[in-house]
């Protein structure tokens, strides 16, 4: 595992911890930093990172804390506190 991959993973953990501790702005900074590192190193982000970060406001989503997860026919809807919704198919 390269330093860059590990850094993305570490920043994701840090963002989740910061979101749990209500340091929302900090969490967003960590998510943005992880995206930037991945972009510079041409890495694809882990699926868990893509699905549990908000595309609009960069929040680290934690169901029950700052995100709602609803199961529907054929897909899951994850709603961020900012109002952004993301749909993922079952597979």
């Amino acid at each position, binding site marked *: 595992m*390269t330093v860059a991959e*590990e*850094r993305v993973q570490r*920043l994701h953990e840090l963002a989740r911890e910061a979101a749990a501790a209500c340091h929302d702005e900090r969490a967003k900074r960590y998510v943005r*930093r992880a995206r930037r590192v991945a972009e*510079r*190193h*041409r890495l694809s982000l882990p699926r868990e990172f893509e699905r549990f970060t908000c595309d609009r406001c960069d929040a680290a989503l934690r169901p029950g804390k700052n995100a709602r997860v609803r199961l529907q026919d054929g897909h899951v809807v994850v709603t961020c506190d900012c109002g952004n919704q993301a749909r993922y198919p079952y597979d």
Partner: protein
Amino acid sequence: MAVTPETLVRHELVGLDVEVVSASNPDLVGVAGTVVAETTQTLEIERADGTSRVSQVPKAAATFAFDLPDGRTVTVAGERLVARPARRTEQTGDSQWR
């Protein structure tokens, strides 16, 4: 490639415990706590002395002692950390580009 003395300057500093061992500003010497944010020129350290105050320490004018996850302590001259945070990882040819 875990955080080691060799990779520290390219690795994520946020989340590590750190102490400022020397600095041109005497008030910053001895500041100890957890790194919570990084900018090109500074590290923001949340103090572990119970106040949870965040001190912004200029990288260029300080020497830091980082506690690694494996228990070792590494002293780094702050000038080696001066770079945009996302760019530090690229500095020794790990990247596919340049």
